[in-house]
């Protein structure tokens, strides 16, 4: 039975990663004849001279071959008598850092290449930090292009020492340094006489022999539930992969979040019932009694991950759109997906020195330490003790892009110290007393589109009908509740969050709330909807900008056009139209009284 080693090749641009892997495959006879023929043919077409260009075995995209660079990860599979390998060849350019991180997230070991002519570069350090972040414990520093420095031992030792000094606090268990020449095949598969002073193994031999088993820290049983299987009323199985420990029929397991317990009735693996299952196995478990379990629940025995809604994490930002504190994202961890907000950027990490830099926003390829709040309590753990329950991704709510990946450092305690105080009078009681149902009418649209006027008229009508209401107007809120906020994107996000929370409180008080804010970003309106819940009712005033600008009640368009007011929606800052509003009204086509009737008739059933 062979063991498997997953490793990546990373490092700066043109340090020869693809060439090294190509050479390793070629020299260990892992290339089929037709691939070799294609390689020789393609090498001749290339601009790098007539020699075989081993990188062409890896650079599989036409854009990569055209530009002679690696854009995305390539996976190659090969095996020797001793081990099977999955190698991810990763791009060196800074702009493709996220693709390097993709490879690193699944690797047990990293080859970090350094060009012997250039020594340790910024990208060498960035990639090392990402390897460290991803929990890779074993590093092979491959000093390549030794042929270009005539196999100089002194230079080799200088670079080794440079790197070891840099990497000493990155938490690696082992760092091996090997001198190679990928183009000449020196010390890749066979050791070479060129480096008679080098006493270690060839790269391939080292990879075949290195022991990567980690000291198992007496991990108890843990299985996140992927899916509840109910083929008929007699069978209710919980499908998932055992992430640590083992479990046997008859064992009592706990269900997180929550405090329920049950005994294992049966374990199905494939088509068979088995008595006991271990880490890594995909199973389908049934329990001896009905317990509330759904996707995202975690079955445990002798292990105690955290159950909370706040933690500190180190994240790598991967999206072209930069991170904004306070904005809501989807977070996926294990098999659970929920709403999450980065409430605070504690600091960014300087790639070169590792020092902390203050920041409130993060851009692509930056690493930062943040506090993240979740919309409900979930099961998680520190990444160093549990990779599955300690790693997460953040997903943009609108573009669906995987915006960031992160690892959890530790739980934060707010959630344990602040509990929700139950009160005797509930929202239902307050609604009953007022004889109405609550609702938040969220008016959105450009400045001058008629939000305040319409909200004002609708409120008058509702009050005349005997309803209890409250109108929150953008300008008025900024005189008080949001007095300390400006108009930068981060401040706008916070402004909307405050308004949404206040609206929710007022809905709980039994009131019908009307809000009139430009609220130009879809993400923020979605976040408001998330906070307010079922009471959220979106009214989009689609009045064309030409009309709004003609009205220019407050003279703001004039100022914005003159450049006196910055970040003005519609002029110098975008307005994103709602994708699915509950009602759309163009006030250039409907007069105030028609518009008011349109709104009132639409909400009548919701408030009575």
């Amino acid at each position, binding site marked *: 039975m062979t063991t498997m080693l997953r490793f990546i090749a990373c490092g700066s641009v043109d340090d020869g990663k693809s060439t090294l892997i190509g050479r390793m495959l070629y020299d260990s006879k892992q290339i089929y004849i037709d691939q070799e023929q294609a390689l020789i043919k393609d090498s001749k077409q290339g601009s790098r001279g007539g020699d075989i260009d081993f990188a062409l075995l890896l650079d599989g995209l036409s854009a990569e071959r055209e530009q002679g660079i690696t854009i995305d990860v390539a996976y190659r599979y090969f095996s020797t008598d001793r081990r099977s390998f999955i190698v991810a060849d990763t791009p060196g350019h800074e702009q493709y850092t996220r693709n390097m991180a993709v490879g690193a997230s699944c690797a047990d070991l990293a080859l970090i290449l350094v060009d012997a002519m250039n020594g340790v570069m910024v990208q060498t350090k960035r990639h090392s930090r990402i390897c460290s972040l991803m929990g890779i414990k074993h590093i092979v520093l491959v000093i390549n292009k030794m042929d270009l420095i005539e196999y100089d031992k002194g230079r080799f030792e200088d670079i080794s020492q440079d790197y070891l000094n840099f990497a000493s606090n990155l938490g690696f268990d082992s760092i091996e340094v090997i001198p190679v020449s990928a183009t000449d095949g020196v010390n890749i598969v066979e050791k070479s006489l060129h480096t008679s002073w080098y006493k270690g193994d060839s790269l391939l031999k080292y990879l075949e022999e290195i022991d990567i088993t980690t000291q198992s820290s007496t991990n108890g049983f843990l299985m996140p539930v992927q899916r509840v299987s109910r083929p008929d009323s007699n069978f209710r199985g919980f499908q998932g992969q055992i992430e640590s420990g083992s479990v046997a029929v008859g064992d009592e397991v706990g269900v997180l979040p929550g405090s329920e317990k049950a005994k294992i009735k049966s374990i199905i693996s494939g088509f068979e019932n088995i008595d006991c299952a271990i880490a*890594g196995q995909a199973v389908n478990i049934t329990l001896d009694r009905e317990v509330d379990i759904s996707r995202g629940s975690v079955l445990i025995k002798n292990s105690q991950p955290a159950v909370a809604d706040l933690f500190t994490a180190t994240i790598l930002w991967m999206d072209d759109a930069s991170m904004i504190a306070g904005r809501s994202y989807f977070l996926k961890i294990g098999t659970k997906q929920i709403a999450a907000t980065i409430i605070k950027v504690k600091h960014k990490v300087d790639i070169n020195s590792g020092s902390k830099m203050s920041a409130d926003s993060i851009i692509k390829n930056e690493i930062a330490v943040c506090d993240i709040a979740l919309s409900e309590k979930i099961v998680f753990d520190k990444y160093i003790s549990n990779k599955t329950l300690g790693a997460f991704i953040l997903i943009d709510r609108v573009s669906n892009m995987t915006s960031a990946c992160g690892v959890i450092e530790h739980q934060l305690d707010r959630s344990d110290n602040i509990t929700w105080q139950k009160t005797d009078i509930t929202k239902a009681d307050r609604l009953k007393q007022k004889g109405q149902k609550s609702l938040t009418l969220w008016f959105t649209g450009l400045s001058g589109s008629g939000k305040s006027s319409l909200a004002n008229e609708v409120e008058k009508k509702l009050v005349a009908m005997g309803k209890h209401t409250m109108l929150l107007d953008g300008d008025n809120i900024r005189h008080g509740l949001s007095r300390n906020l400006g108009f930068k994107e981060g401040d706008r996000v916070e402004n909307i969050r405050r308004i949404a929370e206040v609206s929710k409180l007022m809905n709980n008080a039994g009131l019908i709330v009307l809000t009139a804010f430009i609220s130009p970003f879809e993400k923020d309106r979605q976040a408001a909807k998330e906070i307010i819940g079922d009471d959220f009712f979106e009214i989009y005033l689609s009045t064309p900008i030409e009309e709004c600008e003609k009205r220019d009640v407050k003279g703001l368009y004039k100022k914005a056009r003159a450049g006196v007011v910055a970040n003005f929606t519609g002029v110098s800052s975008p307005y994103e139209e709602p994708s699915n509003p509950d009602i759309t009204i163009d006030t250039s086509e409907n007069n105030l009284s028609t518009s008011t009737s349109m709104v009132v008739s639409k909400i009548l059933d919701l408030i009575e």
Partner: protein
Amino acid sequence: MNTVSNNHLGHLEAEAIYILREVAAECAKPVMLYSIGKDSSVMLHLAMKAFYPEKPPFPFMHIDTTWKFREMIEFRDRKASELGIEMLIDTNDKGVADNINPFDHGSAYTDIMKTEALKEALDKYGFNVAFGGARRDEEKSRAKERIFSFRNASHAWDPKNQRPEMWKLFNTRINPNESIRVFPISNWTEKDIWQYIKRENIEIVPLYFAKERPVVERDGNIIMVDDDRFHLNPNEKPEMRKVRFRTLGCYPLTGGCESDAETLDEIISETLTTRSSERTTRVIDHEAASSMEMRKKEGYF
């Protein structure tokens, strides 16, 4: 201790099952594409295993070009009924009406009867996630593709802007009209497939085993004359040769190889020692260095 993680095949199987279940749990309209070959047989087996005792919670679909080996069609129909799974069969009827065939239409045949047929079938049923049995060791643009491969409204792949795929945290969120192709056996090699077929005793189409078959030799490929629609050149005459197939597709486009391997063990030992890749037996693949990538950008698997 014998854990799953130090058992290569066990690890690959668990990874594939995890992916199948993630999609079943998170996605609204998945379908598994079934092409009857050995990789599809492994995929079908994995799907049966992943959900047992439940049946796979998604249908299977075969895009039938009408030019498959006859033994493949018999096998498909028998398997579907034995296992009690829903097998949708879809053909580009317009292509059939226009008599689009592999002899006269070259790469246009693949575009119309495979790529277009697939896109139309996915749109027709509203499937927004399709499992495929592609492996990264097959071809070098596939080696670059994520397990979850996102496609725009016209099913096209954008290789320069792939979503990051971290750990096993698959982001399955898509906008309306977008879709995902999911490849659970991305990390398997041809050797893994054969060893798994043996370990799990998976039934495969008999064409994979060597047998005397009527063939002609064309441009270095050994092509089986499977029915009387075959366009024989004037000087061509089918002869009986002992051949087997490493991959299966449309019979006029699938090259066989001369072999004596009549058992799984013999096939595995041949696979371990062969010096040519299985893609050499696919007539369409060596047209241009990046022909696979171009096809994928057009919506092919």
